[in-house]
């Protein structure tokens, strides 16, 4: 059964969101690409089980978050910036809106950086909930289906994650919002 065309069409409809989720989870462009690639391969193999008409993106997020959380537990976290990443100019992907206003560009980049740094402090479970609920706008119910855990768990993780984010984002919020 050649579902490749259908699969490609579905992926094409959600490309930005898929990469955004991968990037917010992993925090690095190269890891994000790996996560996307491996998740899409797995998704295609399981495509026979996907019910057309239901949310493809949520179905994919389920695969991505499971991959991410499973692999993360087995991997030691390395904090230093890799030279390879930095030297890979142009491959890191840049903001679509190459605004000619450098001040705005600077602020936009600073926000993304501090948000990513704050997300990096969360455990993978907490991060997944924030990325799904707050970044992607899924409801508690949808998130609980994606993560395969009770709604009460989603709620408590989300609240605690926001509490942690509050501390890290607060100085930044004050600085930027003060304008």
């Amino acid at each position, binding site marked *: 059964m050649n579902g*490749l065309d259908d699969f490609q069409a579905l*992926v094409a409809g959600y*490309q930005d969101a898929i990469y955004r989720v991968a990037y917010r989870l992993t925090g690095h462009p190269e890891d994000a690409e790996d996560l996307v690639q491996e998740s899409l391969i797995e998704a295609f193999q399981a495509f026979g089980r996907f019910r057309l008409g239901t949310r493809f993106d949520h179905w994919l997020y389920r695969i991505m978050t499971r991959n991410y959380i499973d*692999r993360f537990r087995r991997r030691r976290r390395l904090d230093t910036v890799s*030279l390879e990443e930095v030297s890979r100019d142009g491959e890191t992907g*840049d903001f679509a809106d190459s605004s000619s206003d450098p001040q705005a560009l600077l602020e936009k980049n600073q926000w993304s950086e501090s*948000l990513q740094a704050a997300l990096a402090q969360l455990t993978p479970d907490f991060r997944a909930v924030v990325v799904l609920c707050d*970044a992607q706008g899924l409801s508690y119910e949808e998130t609980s289906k994606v993560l395969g855990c009770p709604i009460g768990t989603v709620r408590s993780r989300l609240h605690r994650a926001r*509490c942690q984010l509050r501390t890290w984002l607060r100085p930044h919020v004050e600085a930027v919002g003060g304008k």
Partner: protein
Amino acid sequence: MRNDKACEERWGCLNDLADGRLVGRKRSRLEAHIESCERCREALEEIRNIKSKVRQTEAPHAPDGLWGRCMGRIADRPARQAPFRWRRKPAVGVAAACLAAAAALVLSIGPFSVHDEDEIPHDHYVMEHAGFAAAQPLDMSSHHILLSAQGAENDRRNPDAESLETPNDAPNTHVR
């Protein structure tokens, strides 16, 4: 925080309110409380701020060719499940010292520079290039690139503290 459990509950309710999950009497009671409680008002504001910032902050776009690569791999290999590997490797080498958050700004040391004794190390080029730029009154960034290159050069000459020459044995050179 005087009462952690109460605070946690209050935080939970405020979050529910921000998420539109509070209804009926619970909601009106909380809204009434907020009218008179500055701390809760601020906390609610913070929650809304976090939600909107997380929602609105842009992530970088996918690198060029990512989707083509993905689909290519899927088309090539439909049946086998590939093992998942983290490809990103830890920072290694001399220039890692330069790259730490506190050090001067980013550099990449290429394959020619660190280990090729036969060739002029790449950092020398960076030093010469950035040195002239740094002497321009309007330039500021090159100064820091120059320092990184000098740092890398220094690390190459002095790989570790123990093996340093004493100042009197400095090579026969002159400082311009």
